[in-house]
């Protein structure tokens, strides 16, 4: 093993040596510098591997031939070697990244960089307080110089502000160190810790000054204005170093010095960290400048880490895992993001749309963003899971709430940013060059991120229980993204079929999982068929489609809470990307993501609550939770965001409507069922009694009823075909919710039947309408009309779809209605039932509007040559129609197993449905799908023949051959009665459709924004104000602590 002191020697020596070089030797000098950093990196990594795998505690390095406390000593332990490796690797990549900047600014600037790395290394290793001070100053001064690397007015101002802030902070630190020496008589950390001297008050103040100075180096909110200016003004390569590098060193410093204090700093650290995390992220949401935004995010993340340090006693053995996983995510992601920022050179986050010109950087950008927010499979996901679970064990609910709130706020602006990158208008005029040497560092960090994810997964408590095959499949698809779309599509379909076949035996006995698994997998394959009509490569579609399905199937397979939540997040992520692919879906995808994220966090908290006092994470443990009310409510609300219950539904219409033609059926017909599945599972596991006690079921029932009414009512007033269907989904999910809330046998049977039905008809409708939209290239129904002649098959599909939707006999939808009546009557929820049935009749309005406005009425000139929907859209439709027909004629195929399954569960021992051949009967009524279909079919055919006989000679006429009060129609557009079709209905009941909910959320949104907008005014840009902030911060913390 090489003595780590050589790192210092080599780096510093190289730095001194480089002072000799002139312009001529630039390349050689750079190579030398790179070698030096590489040397440092290799040594530190080597040490890390050695110490991590071995049993050795670490290496004490003495200088000057005498022992501490008399001389300065360094220590190289596992932690030190880890953080040093991180910093040196970062430094190496940062050095490569800054190659061009160094060439412009001369070799001197690279000297600063070398010294910076060296300083950070010593900061981590040194055990002498004054030595730490000296090297902290070195780091600060080196940074102060590097800030000006970009040159210009802003950089100069930022550098000056940085210097004065650092000046004040270091003054405090030095006073602290001086008096520490006075009272403690030593400058060595270990010496002081071993000496057991009784702490006097003076030493507390001295240590306070030291710690607060280190803390201020970590830029706590709100005493961090200087840092933000630096982030904004500095070269992104330098910002990356500040955010990932010096922050790492400083936080380790804090961690190292913390034991000195006899006071209990931890609660204060928690508060400081949490305030920083939430506050900084809050201000981030109104930030438009990308580097400053990254600065806010960076500060927020560091706040989170500080809070985690503060919470360490509650985390016990898991502290290291949690801290490192959060740290590594921040470290990799933030550096990567800053680097990408430097590549594209765009300061406004809206202009990040240029990223789309380079798929690789877009991919990396997404990866880093997701890593920051804590999506699986990135380390921070595991870290947050463990953190929240451990906090819940200690009943630290406030901290859970604060941390998740902060993460959520961070999600707001990061996803908005991601949305801009994906969807904002890209000004093609402005050229951009993706320089290769700048791409290397983020690429390396992306690879490291994936590697870190893999290792985190293995190291985490429950990660090894995950089924990673789908994840590997997704990764493979990322790699194979260069293939043409149809190849990938076939691959995905084949993969899904094979996986289903493999999966089948494991869920064959479990009807519930079989039903939902069937919906997910069959639906998945069917909707993917539509993808064959896409030409080209369809980049970035298949990995995420598979991700969504992998998540869905993961829900089915989940055996413990972690797997469930993992799958849930994977699913959310995949569907988010699928949704955002739509043309105008930027805003809607963001809404979707935020509601999903919020919902996921609620589920998360619910899981955490249920885990209190439990040893294992089995799903079964939900039944023995000690806080059933809260657990139930939180998890249920989480699922309700996915099922878009009213109040939480505003994301749905836009997201479903603006998605691509074949994505809409995926997210509407299939994805929504995930929430239903979750709710069913929740009830089954927790037992309804728990919920019943708190009247929660009653509330849920009302919620379902109002959702049904509200969703359908909104659908009536839509002009956008897909939006109409989307609102209809809201309404339909309301039915399901309502039926679920019964928690009776027949109620659940209704819910499950309806789920299957909804899958069938809504997928069918979205596919059919998607095919139409694909052809006519508009969503507005009033612009279509008369398409029945061009697209008869789509018309038939829609017709069958709406008959099923409306519950008109003889098709399968009627079964749902019939069960509903039985359920309502047996449960006694008549008034809610009234809402539901009112909603049912309202459904006719939009069903008619949909089919009439699109297929009937007046054909438009411009759609005269429109062709039938692509055959790949029609094939799944035909299969779905066959499905509907089968379930219509033989409802027992579905209902019998469901009934049996429900009877086997503990809740509903008796099956109220009696079967006599194919006739179902309850105490109340009876229903024979097969016979009804037969009767109606025969009758229909007879009557049709009768009419055919009577009017066999009918003359075919054209669209304007209509009776028009002796006049002729003007043109098709004005003759098609479609726009605002139900204006009279709006006059009568429109007051119910006033978007109160959107108003509420918008209000909340604007309150948050204005709050952030006002709060950030404290960052006046005046360096002196920042100094005052720092002073006040010190004083306030001091007053709180003493």
């Amino acid at each position, binding site marked *: 093993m090489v003595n780590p002191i050589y790192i210092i020697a080599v780096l510093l020596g190289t730095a001194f040596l480089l002072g000799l070089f002139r312009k001529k030797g630039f390349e050689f000098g750079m190579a030398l510098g790179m070698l030096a950093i590489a040397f440092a990196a290799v040594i530190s990594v080597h040490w890390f591997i050695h110490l991590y795998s071995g049993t050795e505690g670490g290496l004490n390095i003495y200088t000057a031939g005498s022992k501490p406390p008399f001389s300065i000593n360094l220590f190289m332990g596992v932690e030190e070697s880890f953080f040093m490796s991180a910093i040196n690797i970062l430094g190496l990549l940062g050095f490569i990244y800054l190659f061009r900047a160094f060439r412009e600014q001369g070799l001197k600037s690279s000297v600063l960089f070398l010294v910076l790395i060296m300083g950070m290394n010593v900061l981590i290793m040194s055990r002498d307080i004054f030595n730490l001070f000296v090297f902290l100053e070195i780091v600060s001064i080196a940074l*102060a110089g590097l800030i000006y690397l970009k040159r210009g007015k802003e950089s*100069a101002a930022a550098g000056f502000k940085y210097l004065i802030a650092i000046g004040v902070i270091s003054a405090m630190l030095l006073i602290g160190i001086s008096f520490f020496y006075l009272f403690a008589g030593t400058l060595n950390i270990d010496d002081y810790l071993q000496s057991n001297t009784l702490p006097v008050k003076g030493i507390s103040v001295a240590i306070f000054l030291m710690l607060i100075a280190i803390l201020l180096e970590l830029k706590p909110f709100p005493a961090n204005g200087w840092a933000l200016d630096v982030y904004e003004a500095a070269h992104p390569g330098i910002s990356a170093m500040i955010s990932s590098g010096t922050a790492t060193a400083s936080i380790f410093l804090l961690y190292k010095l913390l034991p000195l204090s006899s006071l209990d700093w931890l609660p204060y650290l928690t508060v400081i960290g949490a305030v920083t995390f939430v506050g900084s992220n809050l201000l981030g949401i109104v930030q438009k400048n990308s580097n400053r935004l990254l600065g806010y995010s960076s500060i927020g993340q560091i706040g989170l880490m500080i809070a985690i340090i503060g919470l360490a006693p509650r985390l016990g053995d898991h502290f290291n895992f949690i801290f490192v996983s959060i740290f590594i995510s921040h470290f990799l992601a933030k550096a990567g993001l800053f680097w990408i920022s430097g590549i594209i050179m765009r300061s406004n986050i809206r202009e990040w749309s240029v990223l789309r010109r380079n798929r690789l950087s877009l991919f990396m950008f997404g990866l880093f963003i997701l890593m920051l927010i804590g999506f699986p499979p990135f380390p921070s996901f595991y870290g947050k899971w463990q953190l929240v679970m451990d906090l819940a064990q200690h009943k630290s609910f406030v901290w859970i709430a604060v941390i998740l709130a902060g993460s959520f706020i961070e999600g707001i602006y990061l996803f908005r940013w991601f949305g801009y990158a994906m969807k904002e208008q890209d000004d093609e005029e402005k050229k951009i060059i993706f320089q290769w040497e700048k791409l290397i560092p983020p690429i390396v960090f992306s690879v490291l991120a994936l590697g870190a994810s893999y290792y985190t997964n293995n190291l985490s408590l429950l990660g090894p229980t995950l089924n990673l095959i789908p994840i590997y499949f997704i990764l493979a698809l990322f790699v194979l993204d260069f293939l043409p779309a149809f190849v990938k599509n076939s691959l995905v379909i084949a993969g899904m079929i094979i996986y289903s076949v493999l999966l089948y035996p494991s869920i064959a006995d479990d009807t519930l999982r079989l039903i939902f698994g069937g919906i997910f997998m069959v639906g998945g394959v069917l909707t993917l068929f539509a993808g064959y009509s896409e030409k080209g490569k369809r980049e970035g579609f298949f990995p995420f489609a598979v991700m969504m399905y992998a998540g869905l199937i993961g829900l089915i397979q989940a055996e413990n809470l972690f797997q469930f939540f993992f799958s849930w997040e994977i699913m959310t992520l995949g569907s988010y990307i699928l949704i955002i692919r739509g043309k105008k879906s930027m805003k809607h995808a963001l809404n979707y993501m935020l509601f999903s994220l919020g919902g996921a966090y609620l589920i998360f908290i619910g899981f955490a609550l249920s885990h209190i006092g439990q040893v294992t994470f089995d799903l079964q443990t939900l039944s023995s939770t000690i806080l059933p009310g809260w657990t139930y409510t939180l998890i249920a609300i989480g699922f309700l965001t996915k099922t878009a219950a009213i109040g939480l539904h505003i994301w749905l219409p836009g997201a479903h409507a603006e998605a691509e033609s074949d994505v809409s059926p995926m997210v509407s017909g299939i994805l929504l069922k995930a929430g239903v599945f979750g709710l069913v599972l929740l009830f089954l596991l927790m037992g309804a009694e728990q919920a019943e006690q708190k009247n929660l079921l009653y509330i849920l029932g009302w919620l379902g009823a109002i959702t049904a009414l509200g969703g359908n009512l909104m659908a009536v007033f839509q002009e956008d075909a897909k939006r109409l269907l989307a609102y209809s989904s809201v309404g339909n999910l309301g039915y399901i919710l309502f039926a679920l809330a019964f928690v009776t046998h027949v109620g659940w049977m209704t819910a499950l039947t309806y789920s299957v039905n909804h899958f069938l008809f809504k997928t069918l409708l979205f596919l059919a309408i998607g095919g139409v939209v694909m052809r006519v290239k508009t969503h507005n129904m009033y612009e279509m009309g008369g398409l029945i002649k061009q697209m008869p098959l789509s018309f038939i599909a829609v017709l069958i779809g709406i008959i099923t939707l409306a519950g008109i006999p003889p098709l399968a939808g009627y079964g749902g209605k019939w069960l509903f009546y039985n359920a309502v009557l047996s449960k006694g929820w008549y008034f809610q039932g009234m809402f539901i049935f009112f909603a049912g009749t309202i459904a006719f309005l939009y069903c008619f509007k949909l089919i009439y406005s699109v297929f009937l009425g007046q054909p438009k000139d411009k759609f005269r040559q429109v062709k039938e929907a692509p055959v790949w859209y029609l094939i799944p439709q035909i299969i779905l129609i066959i499905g509907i027909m089968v379930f219509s004629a033989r409802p027992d195929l579905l209902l019998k197993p469901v009934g049996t399954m429900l009877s086997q569960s503990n809740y509903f021992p008796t099956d109220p449905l009696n079967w006599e051949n194919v006739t179902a009967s309850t105490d109340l009524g009876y229903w024979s799908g097969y016979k009804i279909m037969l009767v109606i079919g025969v009758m229909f055919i007879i009557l049709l023949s009768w009419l055919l006989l009577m009017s066999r000679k009918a003359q075919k006429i054209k669209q304007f051959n209509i009776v028009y009060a002796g006049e002729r129609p003007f043109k098709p557009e004005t003759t098609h009665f479609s726009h605002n079709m139900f204006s009279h209905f709006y006059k009568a009941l429109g007051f119910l459709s006033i978007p109160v909910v959107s108003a509420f959320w918008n209000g909340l949104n604007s309150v948050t924004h204005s709050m952030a907008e006002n709060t950030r005014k404290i960052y006046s*840009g005046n360096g002196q104000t920042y100094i005052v902030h720092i002073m006040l911060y010190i004083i306030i913390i001091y007053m709180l602590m003493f």
Partner: protein
Amino acid sequence: MKIFELENISMAAGFLLLMVGIWGIISQRNIIKMIISFSIVDTSIHLLLVSIGYIRNRTAPIIGEGVTKTDAATQITDPVPQALVLTAIVIGVGITALLLTYSLKLYRHNRSLEINHFNSLKW
């Protein structure tokens, strides 16, 4: 009286200077005056350090006249703060030089030395 001893006076003077410096930093808008205030703060800390190391009736920690090798422990003041102050001075010099250079740069850009004129970056 405790406060009239040399070390107490020098330390009180150090603190006083510190306050003066801080006052200057947060109240003076002129950058040069701020830098001067920083220097005052630096100086005050040096004074504090030296006061910390001072032991009454003792001499400088140099073996030679008046200080014998064997009894040095009872004859000299604390050498450590003196070593520290040396370092601190150098660091202070470095920072002051940097501040001045930056102020020069700022003046070139803005033709102004008022700190509140450099707020183009904010919020």
